[in-house]
C-alpha cells in the first residue's frame, strides 16, 4: 500500500498543481519555440566515448526503489554515477523543476515527467530532443498512441515509463447478487446503474468523482473527443464542449439525475473506505488501478474482475488513457549523451523494464515488455486469478492515437473543480459545466497570449 500510494501516477491526480514564479517560458522569447525538426544524430562511437568517461548524472524521480534499475545501469556503465533525487511528486516536482530551470542551476540531467506536462516544458524549450541519441530507434516498441504522447514529428522529447489505458474494474459478487450483467456499452451501463441501485440501495454501480479531470478526460479520449492541441508555437485548440464531449457528459448527467451515481471526491479516506466496503461496485480506471486497488481494498480480494470500458460503438472498441509518466532529458544537461542513455536504459533495457513492471508494478508502455510471459501471464489472486495485465494489454491496443495536451494543464485541471466538477458535485447541468470549463480554459489561453485555433 505505502509504496503504491507513492507511485508516479498519483502525481497525475494532484490537482493543486503548481507552477513556480517564473514559469516555463524562459528568456522572454516573443516568438516561442521553433517548429520541431529532428536534432543531430549522435554516432555509436560518440555514445561509447561518452559512456566510458567518468560522469555524474542527476536524476529526479519519485518512483520508489528505482535505485534497483539504476544499479543495473551503473553496472553496465561503471564510469557513470547516478545521483537519485526525489523532490516530491506531482505539483512540488514540477514547481521545483521550473524553479531550477529558471534559476539556471540545480536542474537535473534526467527527470521524470507525466505525459500531459511535456508541452508545458517544450513551450519553454527546456527538453532535449533525444531522437538523435538513440530514442529514434525505439519507436517500434510502442503503440502509436504512446509514441505520439512523447514525440512531435521526428522529434522525441521523452522515453515512456508507464501508461494508464483505461478499463473497468468491478465487483463480481456484488453485481451477481444484484442480478446485474456487466455492461459492455455505455447505454447498457446507464440501465445497469439504475438496476443495481434498485437491487442494492446501499451501494452504487460506480462513483463519479467531482475532482478528477484525469478520469473525465480519459472518457472524452475514448469517445473520440480531441479537446486539446498545441502547435508548439503560439496556437492552441480548446474544444472541450465538442459533440463528443457533450455526448459524454450527457450520459453521466443522465445517471446523476436518476440518482444512480455517487459523487464522492476520489483518493480521499472516505473514498478508499467506500472501495473497501462495497459502496462502489465498480471503478472505471487506468491500468495502474488494479495494483492500487489491491493495496486499498485488501479484504475484498478475489472478488474483483477487470474488463474493457463500456463502449460507445461495440464494433470499434476504443479506450482512453489516464496517467502514466516518462523520463525526459533537460536541454541544460552538460552530459546529454549519458543522460539520454540513462533514460533509455531504465525504460527499454529488458532487465530493467521488466523489473519496473513486475517489482514496481508500473504498467509497461512497451509492447515488447507487455508480451513477455513474466508480465503477460501473471495471474492475480486479487482478481480471482485473472491475467489482468493481459486484459489491459488488449485494452492498450484500442487506445486511439493523436490525443494532445495544452502547455498549461495545471490550470485546466484545477479549473475543472470550479466548473464541470462543481456541476457534478451539485448534480446540476453537466453540459453547462462543460461549457463553463471550455470558456475558462479558452479565456486563460487568450489571456496568456495564445492564439485559439
Amino acid at each position: 500500500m505505502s509504496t503504491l500510494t507513492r507511485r508516479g501516477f498519483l502525481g497525475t491526480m494532484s490537482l493543486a498543481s503548481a507552477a513556480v514564479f517564473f514559469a516555463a517560458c524562459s528568456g522572454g522569447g516573443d516568438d516561442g519555440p521553433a517548429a520541431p525538426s529532428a536534432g543531430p544524430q549522435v554516432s555509436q562511437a560518440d555514445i561509447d566515448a561518452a559512456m566510458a568517461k567518468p560522469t555524474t548524472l542527476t536524476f529526479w524521480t519519485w518512483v520508489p526503489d528505482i535505485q534497483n534499475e539504476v544499479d543495473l545501469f551503473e553496472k553496465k556503465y561503471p564510469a557513470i554515477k547516478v545521483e537519485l533525487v526525489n523532490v516530491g511528486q506531482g505539483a512540488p516536482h514540477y514547481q521545483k523543476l521550473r524553479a531550477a530551470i529558471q534559476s539556471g542551476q540545480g536542474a537535473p540531467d534526467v527527470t521524470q515527467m507525466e505525459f500531459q506536462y511535456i508541452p508545458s516544458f517544450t513551450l519553454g524549450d527546456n527538453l532535449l530532443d533525444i531522437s538523435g541519441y538513440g530514442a529514434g530507434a525505439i519507436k517500434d516498441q510502442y503503440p502509436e498512441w504512446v509514441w505520439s504522447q512523447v514525440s512531435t514529428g521526428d522529434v522525441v522529447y521523452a522515453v515512456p515509463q508507464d501508461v494508464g489505458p483505461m478499463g473497468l474494474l468491478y465487483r463480481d459478487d456484488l453485481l451477481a447478487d444484484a442480478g446485474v450483467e456487466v455492461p459492455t456499452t455505455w447505454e447498457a451501463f446507464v440501465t445497469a446503474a439504475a438496476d443495481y441501485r434498485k437491487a442494492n440501495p446501499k451501494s452504487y454501480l460506480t462513483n463519479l468523482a467531482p475532482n478528477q479531470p484525469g478520469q473525465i478526460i480519459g472518457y472524452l479520449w475514448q469517445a473520440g473527443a480531441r479537446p486539446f492541441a498545441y502547435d508548439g508555437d503560439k496556437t492552441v485548440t480548446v474544444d472541450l464542449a465538442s459533440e463528443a464531449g457533450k455526448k459524454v457528459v450527457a450520459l453521466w448527467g443522465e445517471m446523476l439525475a436518476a440518482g444512480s451515481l455517487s459523487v464522492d471526491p476520489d483518493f480521499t479516506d472516505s473514498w478508499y473506505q467506500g472501495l473497501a466496503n462495497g459502496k462502489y461496485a465498480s471503478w472505471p480506471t487506468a491500468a495502474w488501478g488494479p495494483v492500487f486497488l489491491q493495496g486499498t481494498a485488501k479484504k475484498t480480494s478475489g472478488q474483483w474482475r477487470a474488463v474493457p470500458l463500456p463502449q460507445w460503438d461495440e464494433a470499434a472498441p476504443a479506450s482512453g488513457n489516464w496517467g502514466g509518466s516518462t523520463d525526459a532529458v533537460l536541454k541544460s544537461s552538460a552530459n546529454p549523451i549519458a543522460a539520454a542513455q540513462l533514460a533509455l536504459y531504465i525504460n527499454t533495457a529488458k532487465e530493467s523494464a521488466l523489473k519496473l513492471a513486475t517489482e514496481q508494478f508500473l504498467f509497461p508502455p512497451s509492447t515488447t515488455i507487455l508480451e513477455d510471459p513474466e508480465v503477460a501471464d501473471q495471474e492475480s489472486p486479487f482478481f480471482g486469478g485473472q491475467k489482468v495485465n493481459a486484459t489491459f494489454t488488449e485494452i492498450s491496443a484500442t487506445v486511439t492515437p493523436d490525443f494532445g495536451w495544452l502547455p498549461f494543464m495545471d490550470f485546466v485541471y484545477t479549473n475543472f473543480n470550479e466548473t464541470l466538477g462543481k456541476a457534478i458535485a451539485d448534480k446540476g447541468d453537466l453540459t453547462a459545466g462543460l461549457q463553463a470549463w471550455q470558456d475558462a480554459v479558452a479565456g486563460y489561453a487568450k489571456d496568456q497570449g495564445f492564439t485559439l485555433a
Partner: protein
Amino acid sequence: MATATVPTPTRSADPPRRRGLTVAKKRQYRAAYLFVLPFFVIFLAMIIVPLAYAGYLSFFRRQLIGGVSFVGFENYAKALTDASFLSSVARMAGFLVVQVPVMLGLSLFFALALDSGMTRLSKIIRLGIFVPYAVPSVVAALMWGYLYGPDFGPFAQVAGLLGLPAPPFLTSTGMFFSIINVVNWEFIGYNMIIIYAALRSIPPELYEAGRVDGASEKRIAWSIKIPHVRPALVLTVIFSVIGTFQLFNEPNLLRTVAPTVIGNAYTPNLYAYSLAFVNQDVNYAAAIAFLLGIVIMALSYAVQLWNQRKENRS
C-alpha cells in the same frame, strides 16, 4: 497610566555632550549597534526585500506567450473589479463578524473561570484548552476533515445509528461553520492564555477593595477584571482580524475532502496562491497580496481607533 514623575532632562546640557562622545561611550554605542545588527539584517532580508520585490512584481504582467511588460496599476485595477477576489474578501469579512466574537467570548469566559480559582484541576484544564493551539493547523485540518466525513466520519456514523441523515458539514453552507469550528477549536486556548496573563497582572488589592464595598464575584469580573484586560482583548481582536484574512491552511486542507465546495478563491490568500502557482500569474498574485495587506491594515487601524476613542471617553 504612569504618572510623569521622571524629570525631563535639561536641554542646555545635551547638545555639547553628543558631539564629544567619550571613547567609552563610543564603544558602547558600537556594541549596541552590533547587537541589534542581526535583527536589522534579518528584518531587511526577510521582510523589506521580499515586500519590495513583490511590490515591484505587481506592476508587471507576464504572459506565457509574449513575455513581460510594465502595466503600472493595471493589476490593482483588475483586482478591484475581480468578482472572485471581492467575494473572497466579503466571505472573510462575514467570517470575521461571526467567528471572532464567539471565539473571544469563549476565550474570555474560560480565562475568567480559570482566574476565579474555583475550578479544580485548573492547570490541567488550562493546558487542555491550550493544547489544540499546539497542534499544527495542517494536522488539525486533516483531523477535522476525517471527523466531518459524510460516510465514515464518527458524527455521520452516530447520526446513521440514530437513523438520521449525516450532518452537512462539508456542503457549501455547512463548510462556513465547519471552518469556524476548526478555527475556534485551534485558537480559543491561545487567546485565553493572553487574556489570562492579563488577568493575573491585576493587583489583588483592587479585588479586596471591591469586596469591602460589597461587590459580588460577578460584579468584580464585570467592573474590575474585564476593564483591566481590555488592552489584551484589543490585542486578540487585532490578531484575529489578521488571522481571519490570512486564512489558508484550513480551507486548503479541507479542500481535499470537499474539492468543489472550496474553490480557488474561497479565501483571499488561497486565491493569491492559486494565481501564483496554478495560473502562473505571479504579478497579479502580488497585487492581490498587497491589496489584502491594505485591507488588513485598515481594519486593524479601525479597531485601534475605536479602542482609543472608547478609552478617551471613559
